[in-house]
């Protein structure tokens, strides 16, 4: 009886499927994998807001050749959940295009699951180098690779800060502190390699666990080293703990450069108040000098910032702008050229993209590697024109300060006042 019922159900299902042919006005369905719960949710939700704004803007403009964009969400709060949620969207909902995913460990997991099913993955902000270095065919990373973050910080020191501090670059004591998971390690490795190539010696170079509850040993050791400039890669909670401990132990530097993540989190001001002013952040630019953008991009940018601020009551952080920029490029540069929306077709279109700097809202252009990168023959799908720079926390919000062509203001508060004067 039961098998008979099951057969009946299958038959009904088949006949239903047969009567609904795919129509031109069917929505384009995209799987959005972001951490919506758990420790990464804060940034995941911000990215989700940016993606929703992009979807609304494109749908209000009539969609893509009349087809609306529709999102199916997966809660990728850990790498394991990212894999199972991606699998679920692919096998249960028949998704052929995925995007996301804010954090590197999540991006690594999502792209792996997508690639296994030959699904097209458009990564917006994941940064670890490994994402595009596994020889994958369908993974495209629009954001900058991890090494670029660190390079921006070092270039800023070499080309700008050294002059402002009145010291030659080789007379500066530079310290590097990194959290030892995928992102921090990847950025730290990049900075080390880049400083070596420029013959700059690091006075301090150490990793730490981001769940650390006591920063005393780290801050004390830094204090004993006495660097002029500290480059730190942290997540929000440890960034706050570090800043508080630095104040407690009266550890001062002439310039403090945080790299993305913790130091770019809008929470930082809520937690440490005005001590945040003057801190530099090497990151995706939250907002760039308008003259750097193409005229039509400028209009899109204005609309995005207006909608985001209306919704969230504050300007977007760098990765929210980057998330919007990347997904907007998918809708306006890739999709309009597609007919079948099959991963192979999308891949061909993506690889042919050649957009100059300033094409995307955050100042990026697009040109993907295609197994032709001299560093690593397996690298494919990494955007070589992702914008990256340095911005600074100011009394009123943030200003892009480096590179000069993207900058909205010159750097201020150099050298950084001692804690006793802040």
């Amino acid at each position: 009886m039961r098998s008979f019922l099951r057969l009946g159900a299958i038959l009904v299902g088949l006949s239903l499927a047969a009567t609904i042919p795919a129509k031109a006005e069917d929505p384009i369905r995209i799987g959005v994998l972001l951490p919506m719960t758990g420790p990464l949710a804060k940034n995941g939700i911000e990215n989700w807001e940016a993606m929703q704004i992009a979807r609304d803007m494109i749908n209000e403009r009539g969609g893509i050749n009349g087809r609306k964009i529709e999102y199916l969400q997966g809660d990728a709060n850990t790498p394991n959940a990212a894999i199972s949620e991606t699998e679920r969207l692919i096998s249960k909902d028949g998704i052929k295009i995925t995007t996301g995913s804010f954090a590197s460990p999540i991006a690594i997991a999502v792209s792996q699951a997508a690639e296994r099913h030959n699904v097209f993955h458009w990564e917006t902000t994941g940064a670890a180098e490994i994402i595009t270095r596994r020889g994958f065919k369908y993974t495209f990373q629009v954001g900058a690779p991890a090494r670029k973050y660190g390079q921006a910080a070092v270039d800023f020191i070499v080309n700008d800060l050294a002059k402002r501090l009145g010291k030659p670059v080789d007379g500066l004591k530079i310290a590097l502190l990194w959290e030892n998971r995928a992102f921090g390690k990847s950025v730290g490795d990049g900075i080390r390699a880049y400083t070596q190539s420029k013959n700059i010696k690091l006075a301090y170079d150490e990793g730490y666990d981001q769940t650390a509850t006591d920063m005393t040993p780290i801050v004390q050791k830094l204090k004993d080293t006495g660097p002029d400039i500290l480059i730190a890669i942290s997540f929000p909670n440890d960034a706050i703990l570090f800043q508080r401990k630095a104040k407690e132990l009266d550890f001062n530097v002439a310039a403090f450069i945080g790299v993305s993540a913790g130091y770019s989190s809008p929470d930082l001001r809520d937690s440490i108040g005005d001590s945040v002013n003057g801190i530099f952040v090497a990151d995706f630019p939250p907002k760039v000098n308008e003259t750097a953008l193409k005229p039509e991009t400028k209009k899109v940018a204005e609309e995005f910032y207006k909608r985001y601020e209306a919704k969230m009551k504050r300007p977007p952080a760098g990765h929210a702008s980057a998330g919007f920029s990347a997904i907007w490029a998918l809708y306006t540069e890739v999709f309009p050229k597609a007919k079948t929306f099959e991963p192979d077709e999308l891949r061909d279109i993506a690889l042919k993209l050649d957009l100059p700097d300033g094409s995307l809202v955050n100042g990026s252009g697009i040109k993907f590697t295609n197994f032709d990168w001299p560093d690593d023959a397996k690298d494919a799908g990494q955007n070589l024109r992702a914008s990256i720079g340095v911005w600074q926390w100011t009394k009123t919000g943030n200003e892009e300060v480096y590179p000069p062509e993207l900058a909205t203001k010159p750097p201020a508060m150099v050298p950084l006042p001692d804690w006793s004067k802040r």
Partner: protein
Amino acid sequence: MSTILQLVVSGVLIGSVYALMSIGLTLIFGVLRIVNFAHGEFLMIAMYGAWAISHWLGLNPYAAAIAVVPAMFLFGAIAYRLVVSPGLDKPHLVVVFATMALSIFLQNAALMLMTADLRDVPPIFARSISVGSVYIKGELLLGFAITLACTIGLQWMIKRTYLGKAIRATVQDGEAAMLMGIAVPKIFLITFAVGSAMVGLAACVMLPLFSVFPTVGLNFVLIAFVIVVLGGMGSIEGALLGGICVGVVQSLSGYYVAPAFGQLFFFLLFLLVMIFRPNGLLGQKGAAMLGMNE
């Protein structure tokens, strides 16, 4: 020299705060012989409570303890009735899974209600106190004093009051205690609630030091477990000693070896203590086995 002094002082102070947060866990373990896996989430909830009071009513987080401690006592009593006590007469794993489920439930409830935002209170003392070349954070010093007072107070309660005597009797032999007219289920309830209230106090001490977010408990619960086992399960002064050990080891190894190995070293210490003193530093003999063979 000033470096090592700074590291030890900071280690002792932060260790005492870890100890305060572990006392509730060790108390509950010592009497009920169960491990509350939701301990970290109790801390998280209490921290949110203290944050809400100081954020919306503008009260000092230490003053918030007046409300948070009784509230956590009540919360502990309710959690005990709903989640723990139904599993007490069943195999040990039932309580393990029940408290784990409670932990996951509380984390996600907090995420829904409070979002993943980090919440903080402004510092209580504007500057740290400097003694020679050593800097001491006022909040940590206060935490140390509160921990000492609590340890002494709880010891006194257990040694000198009728309730303490009843608790000790329950620990020694639950059945005999019941025959002597001690309401063992009530003792369990009170102990669980007192343990939770202690977490409430710890939360008020920790709020000026740490941000609160839904998964904050995960950062501390492992430390608490290590402290409880290190000090001797069920031993309150052992928790203080264990906490200080963990704080100092973390601080010194973080400086002299590498910060990334800070946890490795206190687990190493943990393993050594387990090998040479399986009942912990101050634990009673056979503590781990007590109540297991009933």
